[in-house]
């Protein structure tokens, strides 16, 4: 009941804000070429969806996000496992990988453009580079937090190393690893949209930039709203998936 009331209040606040914005633009308190009034935005949403390849751009951006994160999982989980098993490597590299977190890796995109050419491969490579960092760190963190008693019991029953890994360590660390995967997905998407926007590659980020360059302000606002809605949906879905993985 409470949850219902709070989401209704949230929606009402957004509606009131939209109305105020509409009035402010109509009264020329805010210039219409800076902020598109919500009514024009809604009208533009229809034309943008009808005239621009929105669905195709959406598929490109999200396909690239998923693919680069999948690659990051395939590389990052084994690397995290290696850092856990070889304590020396773990101690030597962990702070370096942590530092990569804070380095603005997105700046590498010009190099990737030259190496891979202007293609979807640049986008996937850039998504991969940022997604792999949290996946490695969270895999190692999850494996380190597995209760030793679980491993000892498995060893006591003469389980092989492979069985200990697949039947005990990985399942126990799964929720933490998935947290890393979720972070990786969001980082990859952020980076991918950024490169699409900056380098005028295809995808949702490109669409926003192109509408701005054409000075179609209501259309640009509509495209931005589309992007906000899809990333919010993405966030909510992966959050639900994370709870589901954690609960099993």
């Amino acid at each position: 009941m409470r949850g219902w009331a709070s989401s209704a209040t949230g929606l009402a606040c957004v509606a009131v804000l939209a109305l105020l914005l509409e009035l402010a633009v109509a009264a020329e308190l805010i210039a219409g070429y800076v902020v598109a009034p919500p009514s024009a935005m809604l009208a533009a949403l229809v034309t943008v969806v009808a005239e621009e390849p929105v669905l195709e751009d959406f598929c490109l951006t999200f396909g690239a996000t998923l693919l680069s994160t999948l690659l990051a999982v395939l590389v990052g989980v084994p690397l995290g496992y290696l850092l856990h098993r070889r304590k020396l490597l773990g101690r030597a590299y962990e702070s370096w990988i942590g530092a990569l977190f804070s380095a603005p890796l997105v700046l590498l995109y010009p190099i990737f453009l030259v190496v891979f050419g202007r293609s979807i491969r640049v986008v996937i490579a850039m998504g991969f580079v940022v997604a792999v960092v949290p996946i490695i760190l969270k895999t190692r963190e999850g494996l380190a937090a597995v209760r030793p008693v679980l491993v000892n019991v498995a060893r006591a029953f003469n389980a092989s190393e492979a069985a200990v890994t697949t039947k005990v360590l990985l399942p126990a660390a799964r929720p933490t690893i998935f947290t890393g995967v979720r972070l990786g997905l969001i980082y990859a998407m952020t980076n991918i949209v950024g490169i699409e926007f900056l380098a005028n590659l295809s995808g949702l980020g490109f669409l926003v930039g192109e509408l701005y360059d054409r000075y179609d302000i209501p259309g640009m606002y509509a495209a931005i709203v589309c992007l906000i809605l899809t990333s919010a949906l993405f966030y909510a879905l992966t959050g639900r998936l994370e709870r589901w993985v954690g609960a099993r």
Partner: protein
Amino acid sequence: MTGRSERHAVLAVRLATVLALWGAWELLARSGLLYEGVVPSSLRVAAALAAELGDPLFYRDALWTAYEIVAGFALGTLAGVAAGIALGARRFAAAAAGPYIHGLASTPKIVFLPIVMLLCGVGAGSKIGMAALSAFFPVVIAAIAGMAEVDAVLVRVARSFNASASDLVRKVYLPSLVVPVTSGMRLGLGVATIGVLLAEIKFSDRGLGHRAIQHYQFFRVADMYAVLLATFALAVAANALMGRLARRR
């Protein structure tokens, strides 16, 4: 397993890795596997780095970028803490605003750049705006989460002593928010840095992002690597400093 021999081993692994990466880079540079110039010899990068560090314009750009980051980060942090206290003080408000804040927080901030440029112009204002917008979300999320952890007894005691709203904020809320907000600020500084650099790449006439992309456009790749290396080093150092501040608390 003494600490000392282990430290030596860690050091040895790191040294070996640096040497191996360096060797691989040089091999790649000399093999001609990639287009000419994409992977310049490390000697040329080192020479370019020395040239950059000797160029007064490099420091002008670095200071400019630092100014934009710090100004925007401070604005975003202040707004995030204020909004976090306002929303977090009422469970209902926090629940109502939560989905919108989390939804916007996960949106790539770069798409707001056109709006920010329309609102704040194409100069330093838009970069500061991007940094503020980027830093706001991690801070406000941390502040709301921190407000949920504030001991209800403290609030009730303060209220029963007739504490005013500003007393409540200064003497109860702010002290209990220090720890969660500093960790939010650490994330915020990172995203504010990225916001400023990307905005400089898209449209600017100075700053480190502009400098790097300028080198790229004239295909001075070694110089671009030099600027990128310096930028990464500065970003990592700033983050380490924030981390140290956060741990000191």
